[in-house]
């Protein structure tokens, strides 16, 4: 009981001190942004925009979540805006990529793997490649090669564990399309890893 009470007072006492934002949160928000947009210039802009729009709606900060959670949520929305903008202009190009992908990876007739993309065991299956620098480098490069919309869907799903329904809504895609993108992305990424690691 006592603990509950304490927690309650604590949650209520979240304060907002904009003069400390830069020193307290700028670096954190920057690393949050850079992993999601992979562009330093853009990440900086997003941080600035985040602080400025936070200032504008500071009277709506109710202290229910901590300052950093609140700021991160604002930043996250801005990142989703970036994803949305990036992918909306590209639908046509991506439709073409889709076509190509379908015939490239699987036989159009029977759905069998085509020779050059057929999965082989290449060393990531049985022991942990996690944290191996070289491999992470390749992983990053392969991800950057993905079409913008695919990468946005993939990032939202795997980095932030967003619900699929939310991703569909934010990026304006249907549920069926969502799964097609998830599938294509993975087939593509896996193939790229195999090609560059072997």
């Amino acid at each position: 009981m006592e603990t509950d009470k304490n927690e309650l007072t604590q949650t209520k006492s979240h304060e907002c001190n904009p003069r400390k934002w830069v020193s307290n949160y700028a670096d954190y928000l920057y690393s949050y942004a850079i992993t999601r947009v992979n562009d330093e210039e853009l990440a900086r802009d997003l941080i600035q925009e985040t602080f400025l729009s936070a200032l504008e709606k500071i009277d709506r900060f109710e202290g229910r979540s901590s300052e950093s959670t609140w700021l991160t949520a604002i930043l996250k929305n801005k990142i989703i805006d970036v994803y949305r903008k990036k992918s909306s202009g590209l639908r046509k190009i991506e439709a073409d990529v889709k076509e190509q992908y379908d015939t490239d990876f699987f036989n159009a007739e029977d759905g069998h793997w085509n020779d050059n993309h057929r999965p082989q065991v290449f060393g990531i299956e049985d022991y942990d490649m996690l944290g191996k620098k070289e491999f992470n480098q390749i992983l990053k490069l392969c991800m950057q090669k993905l079409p913008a919309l695919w990468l946005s869907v993939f990032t939202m799903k795997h980095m932030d564990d967003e619900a699929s329904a939310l991703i569909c809504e934010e990026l304006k895609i249907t549920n069926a399309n969502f799964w097609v993108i998830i599938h294509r992305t993975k087939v593509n990424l896996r193939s790229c890893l195999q090609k560059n690691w072997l």
Partner: protein
Amino acid sequence: MNELTKIAYNCKKATFLIEKKLIGKITLREKMELKMHLAGCTICKTFERQSAVINRMVKELFSNVQKENLKLDEQFKENLQHRLEEELNK
């Protein structure tokens, strides 16, 4: 070809189901279809194992970068601080 034979030989469909199963839900029927396919297809089995590992690696990659705590340069932060002060004093 009946439906089941089709999926049994269709790697595109099988890998689609693998992805769906990894992060979402598939129906009982789909589970059965997939099981049948994987029983006879070592290639897609390899795909399945790799795909799960890739998901883990991607997650790890993101959280590592976050832990590295990239720093903004001081000049940028100073300017930003200045900008905020201006707004606050308006």
